[in-house]
């Protein structure tokens, strides 16, 4: 039994007194609503029936809302949309890491050098600018404008170093909100939007070239890219197997890593225009997973089930997915080029008003904002925390720059990466509302409706609060799984 002395009680009351303003609001606006929302998920609460004018009784419907949800094809589509948009996350993380690595350079140099640098840069800019104008790329004023901006940034950057670039990189994510979404909506506008104004002339030049390409060449190019994809994949599987053999990666991590790796291959099966590409990949993955399961079940190795290999393996997966998707996308584009160009030439995409382009458009915008986001700052902090001795040791061993990165920087950053990844996944699951509401209204034909937007439209547009709560709780459970995952594997790395 807990015994409280008088002193304890006094201390507790002081503690609670300071906590009081926060905890009252906290109970009222977080804890109690949470309970109510769970209760609502099991009722048929509907604003049309249960409002102040038609005060009908609330009925409990048991699990009907959840049952409806899992048989609802819309819900599955929107869950799929949410997951699709989350595929942008590894791209964003890779971008942030690259930006941080470049910003981490030592930009300090003597004044003389700086002056020389500015002179060289100015000469390069003037030469390239005049060449562009002579070649007739766009209008002269536009060329001058862009070159002027690049030049100004270069000069500022060589004077201010890291701070200038960091400021400019961080800017889009800092201002992200309705204002920038409206701006991008205008940038994406299909007729005479600034992006298509630049893109269309370029496409016009390419299209005769693409039209003259034979179907065989296209097939060959596409197949080449698929083979490249296979090589990347084989390399990663090889790395995973070898690290599993060395005992760096536990069997569970190994299984999860392989299962995650199957995602792009499944996508490949779904989207690739070369049918055997996906089938090959799928059978490879199935074999791999079966093999590892067999090893796991026969008890060959379960020494280190949760281990340092975990975050590494998953992050490796993420990066590989980027490569695989780029290969897949490019091969598809190459295969489709001749047919597209043979009609009335290549036309610029309609971006957010096109069913197939809407999601990639949002991902491109997300990438633009994600490069310089908080993630970049976290990486910068992580980079400055790596001890210089490790690099010196690597130099003595004669490591190449790539080896330095892969064997020193990357493992040292793995905890930061893991933290960023988990946070991004949690954000991604709940995300997409603001962009959908501002730019696309969830359309065209529901292609950008995410779960968050679905909850909003069900709850506040259609008034089906009970059903919306059920969706919200399903989302909550998804997020909670990620949180659990984080607690299980992430704690010891991020809370040091």
């Amino acid at each position, binding site marked *: 039994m807990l015994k409280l002395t008088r002193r*304890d009680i006094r201390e507790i009351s002081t503690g609670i007194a*300071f906590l009081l303003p926060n905890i009252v609001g906290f109970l009222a606006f*977080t804890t109690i609503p949470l309970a109510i929302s769970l209760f609502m998920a099991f009722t048929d609460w509907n604003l049309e029936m249960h409002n102040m004018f038609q005060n009908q009784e609330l009925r409990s419907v048991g699990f009907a809302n959840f049952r409806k949800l899992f048989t609802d094809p819309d819900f599955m589509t929107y869950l799929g949309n949410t997951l699709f948009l989350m595929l942008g996350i590894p791209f964003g993380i890779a971008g942030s890491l690259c930006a941080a690595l470049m910003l981490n350079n030592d930009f300090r*140099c003597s004044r003389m050098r700086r002056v020389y640098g500015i002179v060289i840069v100015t000469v390069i800019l003037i030469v390239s600018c005049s060449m562009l104008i002579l070649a007739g790329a766009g209008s002269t004023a536009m060329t001058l404008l862009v070159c002027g901006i690049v030049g100004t*940034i270069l000069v500022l950057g060589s004077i201010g170093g890291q701070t200038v670039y960091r400021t400019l990189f961080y800017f889009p994510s800092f201002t*992200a909100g309705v204002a920038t979404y*409206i701006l991008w909506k*205008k940038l994406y506008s299909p007729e005479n939007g600034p992006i298509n104004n630049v893109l269309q002339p370029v496409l016009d030049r390419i299209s005769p070239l693409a039209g003259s390409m034979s179907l065989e060449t296209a097939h060959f190019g596409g197949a080449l890219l698929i083979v490249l994809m296979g090589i990347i994949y084989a390399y990663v599987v090889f790395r995973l197997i070898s690290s599993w053999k060395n005992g760096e990666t536990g069997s569970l991590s190994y299984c999860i890593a392989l299962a995650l790796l199957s995602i792009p291959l499944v996508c490949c099966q779904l989207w690739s225009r070369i049918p055997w590409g996906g089938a090959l990949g799928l059978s490879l993955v199935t074999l791999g997973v079966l093999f590892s399961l067999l090893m796991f079940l026969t008890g060959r190795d379960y020494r280190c089930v949760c281990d340092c290999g975990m975050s590494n393996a998953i992050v490796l997966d993420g990066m590989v997915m980027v490569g695989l998707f780029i290969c897949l996308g490019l091969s598809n584009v190459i295969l489709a080029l001749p047919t597209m160009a043979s009609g009335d030439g290549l036309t610029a995409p309609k971006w957010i008003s096109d069913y197939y382009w809407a999601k990639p458009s949002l991902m491109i915008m997300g990438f633009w904002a994600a490069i310089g986001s908080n993630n970049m700052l976290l990486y910068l902090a992580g980079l400055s925390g790596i001890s210089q001795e490790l690099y010196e040791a690597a130099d003595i061993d004669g490591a190449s720059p790539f080896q330095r990165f892969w064997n020193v920087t990357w493992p040292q950053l793995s905890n930061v990466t893991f933290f960023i990844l988990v946070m991004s996944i949690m954000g991604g699951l709940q995300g997409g509302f603001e962009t959908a509401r501002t730019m696309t209204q969830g359309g065209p034909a529901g292609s950008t409706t995410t779960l968050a937007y679905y909850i909003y439209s069900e709850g506040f547009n259609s008034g089906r609060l009970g059903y919306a709560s059920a969706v919200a709780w399903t989302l909550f459970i998804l997020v909670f799984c990620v949180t659990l995952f984080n607690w299980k594997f992430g704690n010891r790395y991020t809370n040091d």
Partner: protein
Amino acid sequence: MKFSFDGFRLLLVHVVLALVATAMVLPFTWMVLASLKKLQEIGLESWIPTVFQWENYRDVFTMKGVQFGRWYWNSILVAGWVTFLQVFTSSLAAFSFSRLKWKGRDMVFLLYLATMMLPSLVMMIPNYQNMISLGLVNTLQGLILPSAFSAFGTFLIRQFMMNIPSSLDEAAEIDGASKWQLYWTVILPLARPAIVTLTIFTFIGNYNSMFWPLVMIKSPELYTLPIGMLAFDSSQGQQTNLLMAAVTMSVIPMILIFLFMQKQLVKGIMLGGVKG
């Protein structure tokens, strides 16, 4: 002058960084330039307006159905109040969690931490019902109140306060300071960096917040800037030049905060993120 490999590499890095930075800046450049164009010039290939239409900015304020000044003021009012309340309640709670010793403290704090992971979407629907029963729907108070308490803010300030040496507390106690005096005169001033960071984050977050105002506010004179811009976009969005002028003006406060507060901001993110 020697062209060493390292110097060349540095030049290359500079060029790549500058190109990426240009990609970051170009959309904003277009925004400003488009806001100075005539409406007929918007679709043209050239970004540069023939005549700079500065009166676009004035026209935004006098447009029919767009109470831009009013929205601006509402936004700043709401964000300001939320920030003030949140910083105040969070710093009190953080003080209790870090400087006072009482039984069950760490358990309560763990509960706080756990709720940080909750998706805010789950709370939106019941909170809306809450607001209906409190009669606060379609008022600015209804926007301010639910956001005034945050677990994240408490966490951020607590992390910082933990690092303030405890000898200060003892010294203050010997001088006969009460707990309130300890909080107000010793700990709070020392926790300034964390408080500044939280202030910036909360202000920007609420200045930009869209979901809750969208649900709560029905009458146009109570709109905050984000939902006001939405209404502007859906009713008169074809007037791209005026829309862009409005967008530019709504971004300006953020730019100012960003430029003046950058140092604290960067420090704060590293403080909150790496330890979190």
